[in-house]
């Protein structure tokens, strides 16, 4: 902004302020783009999966097949493989987590929507909070609070003097690092990805409108890179949805076994 004050119209690099979108309508904190996108996402997910699972046919139609494949992926590759015995009760949570994050992430590259809600840190915090609550609750329920906390603080099978070092690390891991890694990994990926797209597409746009012919000629490269990054972002978006679900499943699995 001060650049524009000094040298007229110049390139304004995208910043964190580009994530602070004004309310779409009215003047409420509940009518901003990410909030509306989150609600849109849960409506779309609900409609799609209810439609896909409604028939529950032995021989699935196309729609059921697609819905089932996604569900089976979460159920088998994430829940069953990682949690093992008794995994079935956690499938609805993991399935919700995966689809919710996936759809909201992919919104980041869908024309007109084009905003990943997970780049607003509040949503990843909420998801990490759910995950955090669930895996601690499981651990406490399974082993009792005393045994659970003792298992975390004092790793069994470790020489006594090592506790000086290990106990603080283990406590920090379970109570601080895990929720932070869950939420910040997702947030930072979506935030950075969106910023990257803004840089290339905003930059291309700026160059196209520059008075120099040289800049106009180069602007397609910036757009092209923006498009390439869009594909890359798609991959990252899917991957992050997978990772947060995977980590949650791992934490649940960790809380279920007696030995940490």
């Amino acid at each position, binding site marked *: *902004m001060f650049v524009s004050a000094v040298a007229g119209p110049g390139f304004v690099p995208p910043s*964190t*302020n580009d*994530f*602070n979108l*004004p309310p779409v309508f009215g003047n*409420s*904190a*509940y009518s*901003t783009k*990410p*909030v509306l996108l*989150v*609600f849109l*996402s*849960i409506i779309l*997910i*609900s409609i799609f*999966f*209810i439609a*896909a*699972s*409604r028939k*529950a*046919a*032995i021989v*699935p139609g196309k729609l*059921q097949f697609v*819905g*089932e494949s996604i*569900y*089976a992926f979460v*159920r088998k590759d994430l829940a069953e493989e990682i949690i093992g015995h008794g995994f*079935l009760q956690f*499938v*609805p*949570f993991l*399935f*919700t987590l995966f*689809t*919710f994050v996936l759809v909201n992430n992919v919104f980041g590259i869908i024309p007109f929507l084009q905003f990943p809600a997970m780049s*607003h*840190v*509040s*949503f990843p*915090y*909420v*998801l990490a909070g*759910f995950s955090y609550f669930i895996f601690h609750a499981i651990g406490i329920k399974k082993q009792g609070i005393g045994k659970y906390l003792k298992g975390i603080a004092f790793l069994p099978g470790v020489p006594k003097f090592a506790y000086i070092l290990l106990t603080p690390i283990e406590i920090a891991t379970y109570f601080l690092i895990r929720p932070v890694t869950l939420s*910040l990994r997702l*947030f930072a990926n979506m*935030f950075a990805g969106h910023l990257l797209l803004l840089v290339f597409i905003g930059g291309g746009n700026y160059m196209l409108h520059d008075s120099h012919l040289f800049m106009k000629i180069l602007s397609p490269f910036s757009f092209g890179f923006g498009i390439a990054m869009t594909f890359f972002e798609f991959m990252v978006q899917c991957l992050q949805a997978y990772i947060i679900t995977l980590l949650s499943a791992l934490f649940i699995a960790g809380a279920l076994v007696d030995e940490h």
Partner: protein
Amino acid sequence: MHSRFVAEAAQSPLVPKPAELIVGVIAFGLLFLVLRKFVTPMFEKAFAARTEAIQGGIEKAERAQLEAAKALESYTAQLADARGEASKIREEARAQGAAIIEDLRAQAQEEAARITSAAQSSIEAEREKAVNSLRAEVGTLAVDLASKIVGEALEDQVRQSRIVDRFLEELEKSK
């Protein structure tokens, strides 16, 4: 744009917004409830039905295979039975044939023997008859001839026959 920038520049992107936290909890909670109530049970139902269908198919196939094996076994047994029966029948037939042949042969031999003996006895009778008639004829002829040669009338019946008999006896002795 300027005013927004100035007003919100201080806020770090790591600081959550209360409204979004609330929305996040509600949205995620709602989605979780909807999916758990309407979606995951249906998918589980479909999976279970599929597993059952596949297992049912396997069981059915196993049952069919078992039945087929049983049928094969019974057919084999029946076949063996039939073979045994056939060979028994063949054996019997052979024995019967042999018996019939034996019977026929015996009958034929008996018949032949009967015919032979009948022929022999008739031949014997014929010969007897011939011998008797010859004896009478030869006697008469010889007497006639002798009487012609000797000229001696051998009219006397008794003498005549005594001479013939004596002649024949001599003839038989010289033989």
